[in-house]
C-alpha cells in the first residue's frame, strides 16, 4: 500500500505543474512543425523531443545532481548543502517551498567552485545528474558540439561561387546588420520598460539574426546560457520560415527592372584556389580576430578537408556519421534548456519578436547593400542575391533564385546567390567573435 502511494505521489500526473504542461505542448508543437511543416527537422525533432523529456515531472532529466537533491528536499541533504550554498538551514527545521526556492536561487547564483562542491555533496547522498544535463555538459557547455557541427558544415560548403566573385562577401557583411540592429532593438525594449535585458542577453538574442544554428548556440552558451533554448528554437524556426519572411521585403526594396538583372556566368575556380581559401580565412582570423578562431577555425578545417582531396575518409565522416551523431545530442541538449521556468517568460516573447526583426533587417540590408554596390561598379549584380547574405544556407539562396525567376523566367540566380550565402556564414561568425571579444 505504501508502495502504491510512492508510485502515485511520484507519478507525473500527481506532480505535473501548469508550466510543465505548457512546455510539453510546446515540445509537441515543435515536433508538429518539424514533421508536418518541414521546419528544419534535423534539429527541431531532437529539440522538441528533448523539450518534452526535460519537462517530465519528477524525472529531473535536465537537472544536475544538486538540483535534483534540492528538488527532493530531504532534511539531511539540505543541511549538508546549506553549508556549501550558504543558505541558513538546520537539520530538523521544516522544509517549506520558500526554503527550497532559497536553495534553488543560491545554486543558480553560485560561482563555479561552489557548484562543484554542491555537486559532490549531492552525489555523496546518491543523487545523479539527469541524462539531458549530462548531454548538455558534454555537448554544449564544453563548446564542442556546435564547433564540430560547424566543422561538418565547412566540409559540406562549396566556396566556388564565392571565389568566382569575392565582392559578394560584402553582401554577407551587410546582412549582419540584422544582428547588431537587434541588439539595439533589445536595448530599446529595455529602455521603454517593456522587458528587461542585460547587454549580454541582448547580444545573445541578436545572434539569431546571423541565421546560423551552430553560431547561435555557441554564442548564447557563452553569453546567456539561460536563454539558449529560446534562442535556438527561434533561430531554427525563422531559418525554416525564410521562404515566407524574405520575399515581401525583397520585392518592396527592388524594382521589377532590378530584379530582372542578368548576371554573367561565374568563372571556373581552380582546385588550388579552393584549397588556399580556407587557409586565407584562417590566417585573417588569426591576425585580426582571435576570438572567432574556434568557430572559423573549425569551419575552415572542415572545408580544407573537403577541398584538399587527400583526406576523403575524414571529410566523408565529418559530413555524415560525425555530424549526425553530434546533431542528435546537440538537439537533445538544446531541448534540455526548454524548461518551464526559463522558457515561459516575457523575455521569450521578446526573443521571438526581436529574432523575426533581425531576419527582416538582415534581409533588407543585404538587398540595399547590393543596390549600393551597383552604384559604384560597372558589372551590375542582381540585388535579389543580397538577401542571401543572411546565410540560412541554402534556403536563402533558393529564395533569391525563386524571386528572380518570378521576375524573369530565364534568370537563374542560384549559383550567384550561393556566394553571399556562404559569405553570410563567415560574416556571422565574425560578428560572433566581436561580441565574444567585447562582452565575453
Amino acid at each position, binding site marked *: 500500500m505504501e508502495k502504491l502511494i510512492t508510485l502515485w505521489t511520484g507519478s507525473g500526473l500527481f506532480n505535473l505543474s501548469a508550466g510543465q504542461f505548457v512546455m510539453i505542448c510546446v515540445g509537441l508543437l515543435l515536433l508538429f512543425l518539424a514533421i508536418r511543416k518541414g521546419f528544419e527537422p534535423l534539429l527541431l525533432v531532437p529539440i522538441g523531443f528533448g523539450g518534452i523529456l526535460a519537462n517530465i515531472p519528477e524525472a529531473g532529466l535536465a537537472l544536475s545532481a544538486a538540483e535534483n537533491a534540492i528538488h527532493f528536499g530531504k532534511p539531511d541533504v539540505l543541511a549538508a548543502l546549506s553549508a556549501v550554498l550558504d543558505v541558513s538551514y538546520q537539520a530538523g527545521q521544516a522544509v517549506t517551498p520558500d526554503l527550497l526556492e532559497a536553495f534553488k536561487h543560491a545554486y543558480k547564483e553560485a560561482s563555479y567552485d561552489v557548484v562543484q562542491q554542491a555537486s559532490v555533496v549531492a552525489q555523496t547522498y546518491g543523487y545523479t545528474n539527469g541524462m539531458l544535463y549530462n548531454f548538455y555538459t558534454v555537448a554544449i557547455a564544453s563548446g564542442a558540439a556546435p564547433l564540430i557541427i560547424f566543422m561538418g558544415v565547412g566540409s559540406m560548403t562549396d566556396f566556388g561561387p564565392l571565389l*568566382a566573385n569575392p565582392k559578394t562577401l560584402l553582401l554577407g557583411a551587410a546582412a549582419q546588420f540584422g544582428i547588431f540592429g537587434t541588439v539595439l532593438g533589445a536595448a530599446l525594449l529595455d529602455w521603454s520598460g517593456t522587458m528587461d535585458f542585460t547587454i549580454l542577453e541582448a547580444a545573445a538574442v541578436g545572434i539569431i539574426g546571423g541565421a546560423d544554428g551552430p553560431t547561435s548556440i555557441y554564442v548564447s552558451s557563452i553569453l546567456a546560457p539561460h536563454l539558449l533554448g529560446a534562442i535556438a528554437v527561434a533561430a531554427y524556426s525563422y531559418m525554416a520560415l525564410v521562404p515566407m519572411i524574405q520575399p515581401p521585403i525583397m520585392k518592396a526594396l527592388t524594382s521589377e527592372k532590378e530584379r530582372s538583372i542578368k548576371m554573367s556566368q561565374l568563372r571556373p575556380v581552380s582546385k588550388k584556389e579552393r584549397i588556399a581559401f580556407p587557409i586565407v580565412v584562417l590566417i585573417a582570423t588569426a591576425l585580426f580576430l582571435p576570438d572567432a578562431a574556434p568557430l572559423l577555425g573549425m569551419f575552415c578545417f572542415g572545408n580544407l578537408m573537403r577541398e584538399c582531396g587527400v583526406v576523403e575518409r575524414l571529410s566523408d565522416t565529418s559530413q555524415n556519421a560525425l555530424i549526425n551523431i553530434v546533431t542528435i545530442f546537440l538537439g537533445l541538449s538544446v531541448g534540455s534548456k526548454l524548461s518551464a521556468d526559463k522558457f515561459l517568460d516575457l523575455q521569450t516573447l521578446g526573443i521571438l519578436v526581436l529574432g523575426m526583426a533581425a531576419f527582416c533587417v538582415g534581409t533588407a540590408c543585404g538587398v540595399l547593400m547590393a543596390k549600393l554596390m551597383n552604384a559604384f561598379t560597372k558589372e551590375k549584380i542582381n540585388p535579389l542575391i543580397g538577401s542571401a547574405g543572411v546565410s540560412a544556407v541554402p534556403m536563402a539562396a533558393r529564395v533569391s533564385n525563386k524571386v528572380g525567376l518570378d521576375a524573369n523566367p530565364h534568370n537563374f540566380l542560384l549559383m550567384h546567390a550561393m556566394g553571399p550565402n556562404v559569405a553570410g556564414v563567415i560574416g556571422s561568425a565574425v560578428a560572433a567573435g566581436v561580441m565574444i571579444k567585447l562582452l565575453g
Partner: protein
Amino acid sequence: MNELMSQAIDLMIVGMGFVFAFLIILVFATGLMSRIITRYSPPEPATPARSPRARPKAPASVDADTAEAIKKAIAQYRTRHKK
C-alpha cells in the same frame, strides 16, 4: 538614454565596422590569392562551380568484365542501327 542603449550603439558601430573591415580585407586577400595562384601555376583543368552542400555521387562501381560486356553491347547496338 540609459547605459544599455549606449552600450548597444557602441557594439553596433564597432561590430558592423569590424565585420565590414574584416570582410573587405578578405575580399582583397582572396583576390590576391586567386591572382597569385592563377599566375604562378600551370593552367589546370578547372572544376566548374559545384552546387554547394551536395557531394557528387560516387561513380557507379561496375567491374571490368561487366563494363567490357556493356561496351560491346552498346557497340553492337550501334552497329545494328547503322545498318
